[in-house]
């Protein structure tokens, strides 16, 4: 097969393309849209952050050791937990314990399953695969976790009467909160379901586009995309379910009493 190499971009090419941003800044000033500052800062942040990430990856690829890879994955997990914490306004009890354990277990299990059992990475820590794939799994699970935690907390508050009515009739805490947990789980899964259903028609997913651009045979890229989407949906489901089960327990005492908040 003919070897295709990707066209590298020179830094001067980047300078040229940043010209688009500068043009927008000019336009914004001229039309008094008032977004010049935000545009400049965002564009500058993007450049700095991505170049730093690129150098870091470059370094890790060269090191050929599992430790830095594991460190990166843990850092990604910690950022995901912080993001969930910043997005969720109504907190469930024991928020950090529950969200941390759920993200690490949910994403960990699905990443292991996907990289070791489905792809069969060799060596197991190959950063070229492990880092971007785990990133996608964590990123999506983070969104699912936020939705599940937020929905659980708000519904447990709003539907207090319903839950206590069921408790008074002899329902266990699990039964009394069943509808709440179910609707929160549904909310967490909606983005994954929508994006799977729209894929290939409404948009070409980023990973697949990237693989095709870097010379991968389209059918291989498609297979990877299908596989990662299944892993993402699985991880979103496992992570949110762990949050919901632990979260529901945190709202009740052992004697099936709704705790006072």
């Amino acid at each position, binding site marked *: 097969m003919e070897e295709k190499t990707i066209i590298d971009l020179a830094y001067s090419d980047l300078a040229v393309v940043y010209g688009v941003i500068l043009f927008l800044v000019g336009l914004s000033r001229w039309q008094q849209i008032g977004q010049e500052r935000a545009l400049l800062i965002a564009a500058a942040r993007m450049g700095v952050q991505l170049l730093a990430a690129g150098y870091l990856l470059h370094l890790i690829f060269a090191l050929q050791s599992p430790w830095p890879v594991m460190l990166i994955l843990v850092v990604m997990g910690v950022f995901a937990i912080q993001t969930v914490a910043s997005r969720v306004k109504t907190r469930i009890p024991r928020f950090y314990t529950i969200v941390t354990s759920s993200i690490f277990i949910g994403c960990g299990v699905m990443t292991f399953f996907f990289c070791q059992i489905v792809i069969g990475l060799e060596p197991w820590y190959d950063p070229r695969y492990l880092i971007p794939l785990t990133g996608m799994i964590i990123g999506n699970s983070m969104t699912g976790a936020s939705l599940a935690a937020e929905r659980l907390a708000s519904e447990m508050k709003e539907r207090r009467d319903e839950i206590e*009515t069921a408790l008074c*009739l*002899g329902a266990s805490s699990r039964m009394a909160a069943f509808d709440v947990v179910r609707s929160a789980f549904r909310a967490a899964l909606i983005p994954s379901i929508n994006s799977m259903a729209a894929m290939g028609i409404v948009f070409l997913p980023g990973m697949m586009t990237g693989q095709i651009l870097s010379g991968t045979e389209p059918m291989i890229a498609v297979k990877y995309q299908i596989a990662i989407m299944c892993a993402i949906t699985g991880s979103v489901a496992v992570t949110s379910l762990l949050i919901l089960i632990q979260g529901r327990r945190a709202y009740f005492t052992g*004697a*099936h*009493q*709704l705790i006072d908040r």
Partner: protein
Amino acid sequence: MMEVLRAEGIFKSRTDSRKGLTKEILKGIDLSLGKGELWALIGPSGGGKTTLIRLFNRLEEPSAGRILFHGQDIRDGNPLELRRRVMLIQQKAFMFSGTVLDNLQRSFVLGGEAPPPADDRRIRRAVDLCCLPANLIGEEARALSAGQQQRVHLARGLLCRPEILILDEGTSALDRPTAEELISNFRNLCREEGLTILMVSHDLPLMERAADKGLYLEGGKILEQGAAPDFFRKPESPQMIRFMAEMPARGE
């Protein structure tokens, strides 16, 4: 008289997590309810009535003291079983989605029984006792009037076959004749089947006619208790005298 429920030295404090203040709501409650008695629990709002009755079916735990049901500390038993035997009808008549029948069937399902049909003897009886028109049974529960929902709420509780029925303002949304009829039905349940009822209500004339005994709770303490009609007519504590004078006589 056979005692069914007994409270000994009940204290309950609650902490406001935002302000960090702990407030004592119940300050040493002792009471004893006998089988087949109908009790009225009266007193001003904020006096601790709702907090007290939530302890009887273990929706909450007291901070100190103990509650005995048939002589056994309720903390030693299964709370789910207790809640079906000591039925608390909360003030808010929450309707589950679905029809009136769906709501009534839930009492059976939560007790581990198959849901009976609409013409089941037990369902017809509960509907009659609660003065619900039988033709409402197929209606969407949330579309009913407040008074009708309140009666579905009561019937749902009765269907769990409790030994003690605790009503928190259980007739507040009913018109005078319906409230009278319903309470008279409930009184018969006390007489004929030995059901014990504890009613929290602000409807003093109704309570005076229906109750065997009364408890006056204010500031977290039971200031007066005794048998009707003297309990209602000859209060001794200055607090209860003031309360009775200020309450507008409803109905009549």
